[in-house]
């Protein structure tokens, strides 16, 4: 069958809402687009462990510490599910990680913002996870089977993340003047970056149309962004916090994406350090496994 016929057949399967599985024929462009998006998603989970991880050692109560550890651990788990799903497309995790560490791959630019106070942990859970969930729920029905299945698992686990974030904000909003100020400042800091998480306006979004046709994406950036604002506004009112007014500054979005955010360097440096310092450990484990296998062979 020629490529054109295969592509027609492929699109017909997508249109019929069938799922594409790893060994099925798929256009190269579809494979490449999925690898790019899924890897970016996986990297975001891993880099996303850092801003909140910044507060594990300083969480104000032992209960909060346990919740935060479990949450940051979940993010690592979500990264693992997503790398695993991406590997079904014929790349290895090692390749993907290399691309992250040498700066070729992207991750969500939201994680380049700092968490200077405990309230930032609350704001991340409430706003950043809230926006992420809104982006992710449609992906549970995306056309690529392993991605959709990973997303089902992730969305199921994410539901506590947003709630614990709001719960932190609620406690701060009911607290001392200093705590309320902390909460408001965190909202001010995270509001615009959270809105940027839905991606550029539809008119400027270069991947959107094709992604919609392939049912990797099911709602437009602006649609999801509007829905997020609609859901979040009353939640902020209940906290007695004021949502910042104005317009999204898209030049900031581009700058942070291009590496000029407040913590871009620190985030990548932290990932590189862990990778480099772990090298001898990973090698030792392989060396030990090889020795053990050799011993087994000798014994036979």
């Amino acid at each position, binding site marked *: 069958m020629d490529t054109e016929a295969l592509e027609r057949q492929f699109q017909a399967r997508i249109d019929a809402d069938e799922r594409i599985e790893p060994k099925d024929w798929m256009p190269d462009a579809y494979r490449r687009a999925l690898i790019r998006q899924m890897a970016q998603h996986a990297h975001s989970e891993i880099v996303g462990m850092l801003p909140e991880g910044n507060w594990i050692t300083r969480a104000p109560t032992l209960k909060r510490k346990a919740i935060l550890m479990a949450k940051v651990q*979940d993010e690592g788990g979500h990264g693992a599910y997503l790398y695993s799903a991406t590997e079904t497309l014929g790349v290895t995790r090692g390749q993907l990680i290399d691309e992250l560490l040498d700066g070729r791959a992207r991750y969500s630019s939201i994680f380049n913002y700092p968490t200077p106070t405990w309230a930032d942990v609350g704001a991340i859970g409430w706003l950043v996870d809230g926006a992420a969930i809104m982006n992710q729920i449609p992906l549970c029905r995306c056309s690529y089977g392993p991605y959709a299945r990973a997303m089902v698992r992730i969305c199921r686990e994410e539901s506590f993340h947003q709630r614990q974030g709001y719960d932190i904000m609620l406690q701060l909003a009911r607290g001392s003047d200093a705590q309320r100020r902390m909460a408001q400042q965190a909202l001010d800091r995270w509001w615009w970056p959270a809105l940027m998480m839905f991606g550029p306006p539809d008119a400027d979004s270069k991947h959107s149309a094709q992604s919609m046709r392939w049912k990797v994406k099911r709602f437009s950036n602006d649609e999801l962004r509007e829905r997020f604002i609609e859901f979040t506004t009353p939640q902020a009112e209940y906290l007695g916090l004021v949502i910042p007014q104005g317009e999204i500054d898209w030049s900031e979005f581009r700058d942070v994406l291009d590496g000029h955010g407040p913590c871009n360097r620190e985030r990548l440096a932290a990932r590189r350090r862990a990778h480099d310092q772990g090298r001898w450990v990973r*090698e030792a*484990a392989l060396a030990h496994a090889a020795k053990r296998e050799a011993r087994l062979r000798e014994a036979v």
Partner: protein
Amino acid sequence: MSTQREWPLYEVFIRARGGLDHKHVGSIHAADARMAIEHARDVYTRRQEGISIWVVKSSEIVASDPAEADALFEPARDKVYRHPTFYDIPDEVKTL
């Protein structure tokens, strides 16, 4: 940067409860079988999702080729007589 050999990939299968089959849930990387079980446990059973784990090296899995799907699975399609609903049994006949 990628000069280092990666830990092999293992596929993970989990039995959620007694009475159910092991079900494929995803994969993990590990240097050896013992580590593979630990990684599968730490990655895939953080919320009591399982009571038993199988791991198998991904390279050991033999899969059918989707291009052969017609040859493998179409022939079963017209064997409708394998299904109980194919047969009309009079209502008077019980426990059949």
